[in-house]
């Protein structure tokens, strides 16, 4: 569904991605793991059009999207839930969600909202609350819900468990599985490697701007190389 080939990206003079090739098959959860600064976020930002590549190609459903603007990419069905949630802190929950549906016609919105509320019942209760006053976990749910409002074919989640207590982490991962069951393809960037890989159909390990390892989630988990890449043993 999403195919990235030989992607090179740089911030000014600093090269961030080297020859990254990666594919996300339809209806799967793909986990992208790796240390801080390995280039995971850069990759997502490039796919969503916030950053421009130097070379390489990105295709979505067979169409080239390297040159498209962020709004165009959203309309194609690729939605990026950024790291640190990036909610609109002074907007209410419902307004945040409606912002997610910015590219969607008015008539379809109630239906979308309903779907988000069915996944996150707590957001229905809190829809009038100002987003900045929610707890971390709730904010993450708003962020994911906001992403879902655009009706994505591919949802890219950047560190959804970041800064959450273990119980909430559980919940978020549960939600991700559920979203996937609803037919949405998920590209998941995580530091919580074990958890992410358990969940994912397929995983890629990034290191220093390159894809270091890839394989099915289960295989990678069993792979002692992964442990080595992380704990230095």
């Amino acid at each position: 569904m999403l195919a990235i080939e030989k992607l090179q990206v740089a911030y000014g003079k600093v090269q961030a991605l080297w020859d990254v090739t990666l594919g996300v098959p339809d209806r799967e959860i793909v986990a992208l793991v790796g240390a801080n600064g390995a280039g995971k976020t850069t990759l997502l930002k490039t796919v969503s059009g916030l950053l421009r590549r130097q070379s390489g190609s990105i295709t979505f459903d067979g169409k080239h999207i390297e040159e498209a603007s962020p709004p165009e990419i959203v309309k194609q069905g690729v939605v990026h839930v950024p790291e640190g949630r990036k909610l609109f802190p002074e907007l209410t929950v419902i307004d945040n969600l409606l912002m997610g549906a910015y590219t969607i016609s008015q008539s379809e919105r109630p239906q979308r909202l309903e779907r988000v509320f069915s996944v996150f019942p707590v957001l229905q209760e809190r829809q009038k609350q100002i987003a900045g006053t929610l707890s971390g976990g709730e904010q993450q749910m708003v962020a994911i819900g906001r992403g879902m409002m655009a009706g994505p074919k591919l949802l890219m989640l950047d560190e959804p468990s970041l800064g959450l207590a273990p119980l909430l982490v559980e919940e978020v991962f549960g939600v991700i599985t559920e979203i996937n069951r609803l037919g949405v393809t998920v590209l998941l960037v995580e530091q919580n490697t074990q958890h992410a890989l358990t969940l994912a159909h397929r995983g890629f390990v990034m290191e220093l701007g390159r894809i270091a390892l890839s394989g099915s989630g289960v295989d990678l988990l069993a792979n002692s190389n992964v442990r080595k890449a992380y704990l230095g043993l």
Partner: protein
Amino acid sequence: MALLAVKGLTKYFGGLRAVHDLSFDVQTGEILGLIGPNGAGKTTAFNLIAGFIHPTRGEILLDGESIAGMKPYAVTRKGIARTFQIVKPFRKLSVLENVTLAAFLRFPSRGEAESQARQVLERMGLESKISALAVDLTLSEQKRLEIARALATQPKLLLLDEPMGGLNATEIEQASLLVRDICKGGVTIIWVEHVLKAIMNSSNRVVVINQGEKIADAPPEQIVENPDVIAAYLGTKKR
């Protein structure tokens, strides 16, 4: 006596508990690794020690003297220097000027400060870049520049906030050597890092924090066996 002693350090941001009842010591000559998952409170702990934020509760003692609540410049004058996670060089100034500025703290005359700065830059392997503007350096060079700048204040204790973040494998190797070298030169180091390989290889001791609290404090080889640490890092297995 420990060079630095942190006792019951606590910081709340509004209702958010960033650091809670954190206590640890650093002995002179040590490299202490400080690790923990994102959002665990490592940078907050650094900011508290360096005076950038003031603790809600708790004590920070340097050589037995309390430095909690001091302004950052005063802390630096006492002998604690730091680097930043996201580099903050003086972008439009030359590399030499960046470091000279820091050297002014101990050498009020420009001549002496400059020669001190040149020495430090040489140790950091930046002598060839001396007249370049900081903004034109690579990330790895900028990280080294920050360390050089910190060292030029002649600290007893150096706080490194993710010096390896964003570096490639060879650069990480070089940086590890550099850190050990600095320590040999008589500077005690507290080091926050995500590149665990490096920290495990170089530290004398590692403190692990999670959600603002200390969960382990031991030599590296014990840390990697610690089930709490593994859980904090890799996440608990889905049951």
